[in-house]
């Protein structure tokens, strides 16, 4: 199953190390492939380097593309994390 959703980074520091680490941890809980797209760049959500390199600051929009058996729950988990600002602010 393939799902795609665009979301906004709301935490003040953006996808910095702590937030990126949380995202990778969450992504790794699922077997689905999770790709994150920003400004025509696509990285694997299971790669911390990739996520850091997106330089997704607060207010930027990312598109999450999930493909796999547990796509729905993966999308939900990632979505919640991003929406809640990684529990930061």
């Amino acid at each position, binding site marked *: 199953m393939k799902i795609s959703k665009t979301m906004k980074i709301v935490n*003040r520091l953006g996808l910095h*190390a702590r937030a*990126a680490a949380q995202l990778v941890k969450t992504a790794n809980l699922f077997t689905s492939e999770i790709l994150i797209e920003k400004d025509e760049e696509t990285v694997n959500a299971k790669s*911390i*380097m990739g996520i850091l390199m997106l*330089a997704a600051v607060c*207010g930027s929009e990312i598109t999450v593309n999930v493909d796999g058996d547990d796509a729905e729950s993966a999308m939900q988990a990632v979505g919640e994390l991003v929406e809640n600002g990684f529990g930061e*602010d």
Partner: protein
Amino acid sequence: MVSAKIDIPQDTFLVGIGSSPGIAIGESFLLHRNRTTVVPRQITPEEVPGEVASFRRALKMSQVQLREVKDGVSDQRLVDHLYIIDTHLMILDDEMLVKDTISLIEKELLNAEAALQKTVRKFRDVFSSLEDEYLRDRQSDIDSVGDRILCNLTGETRQSLTDIDQKVVVIAHDLSPADTLQIDRKKIIGFVTDVGGRTSHTSILARSLGVPAVVGLETATALVPGGIPVIMDGTNGTLILNPSEMTFREYLRKKQDYEYQEQELLSYKELPAITRDGFRVSLQSNIELPMEISQALSQGTEGVGLMRSEFLFMGRPTPPDEEEQYHAYLEVVERMTPHPVTIRTLDVGGDKFVPEINLNDEMNPAMGLRGIRFSLNEKQMLNVQLRAILRASAQGPVRIMFPMLTGVAELRQCLEYLNAIKNELRTAGIKFDEKIPVGIMIETPAAALIADHLASEVDFFSIGTNDLIQYCLAVDRANEHVAYLYEPLHPAVLKALALICQAAEKNNIPVSMCGEMAGDPLYTLILLGLGINELSMNPSGLPRVKRILRQVDRSAGQKVIDEIFGLTTAQEVIQCLEKRMADLFPDLFGEPSF
């Protein structure tokens, strides 16, 4: 090494970036970590599996080492920062790093060391080109992980901080966050590195640990041999080699003062800021982000005297919507309850420029469309913000503050507008604090001159000294040609402050101060004498100001006011004030700053 000791003249000063405050006096310890030299070597296809296997083995070893570091941390202050090691563990596991390196070994037939180095360099280049300073500093994380793998590949044993068994100041090219986590405070009393920045993970950890640190002192390892006496000051970033007896004594005293004061000041944390004769001042904090609340609370804050809302609007293409603002305000309100939170409506323009908000180029931005003028011009944005603030006021004590007013008409416009929004909320059945106090920032000479008129229509005043001084003296303090004219103690400024405070007192409304003047202990007695009820400042300034307030009677403030109000130049006022403060508080103002 012996000759180096002789070569270095006494009192050689080196300057880097002070990244963790405090003074350390001791012997230098040069951490030898020659950077592993990597020789690129063409390998044969038969060698490929062997190289890949050693690479994987090095990854595994690095993983085990980092896990050990992580498990070894028991200090509560550091537990919060363990995500840094998690990040490093993830880098080790990162498919980009692993795949790219293996692919270089396989396709370009490079030896593992060279392949790894090439991959690390590639990532490093990407990071160093990032605009965001914080993310850019993450290149140091990649470097330190890369170095660790490389060492494990070459089998080099690196000198570790855990091997040190004497009290020393460590001089190193760089320290990784993992190194810093292993610092034993009893042995390592401070460290100096060639590279690094204030926001590197290593600096963040040093501050949490309370280890003095100087970073970015480019030539430290080249110039400082091991085993010589050094003094380092993490507050201003200096390192002194072979100190003379005089310097040694000087810094020993500074160190003792610093440590004593830190200890002593914290003992005031839970006590109220009340003078000996019972005048109560509420000491509050200026904050920008909810994450600053914990530091403010740890310094004993009694509320947020200024929440600068413009930072919610920065670094993003569109302004935050009502929900987002509501949640940001709510978090601060909930965490500060029962203390009040004063939220200032958007204050852009002048030196507070938010590039994302399209302000046309103005000839004279400080006098242009800024502060409340901007908000009254962008009613929709103000509407959203006021609704969010009002909603948050249902959950705890909140005050609204309008910036940059110049007249009563403008104030009435704000109040009318606010009332309209309150009506909207009432009609919609949305809760808010019906008695929410509304105040204004007094930061223009116009507002100071008509403070009596304004005072009868608001619930509180807050004096924004930075702008008030600039407008009063017609000085842009960012302009190097005139910055010397920026004088907080100019008699005109003092007169303006007196007018504002008198108007507040006559109308029985509290007066607060939230500019830089509020946090500088040199001015505390003046502000006390003027009768200011509330001082809001950077949280780190709270203990010192509180200590001064608790040691005097209000009459001491009045006496200072009497002394300085007849003087005609800022210079005279400063001299008089400094002498008075040194007499009263020899331990805080007694020594000339060095």
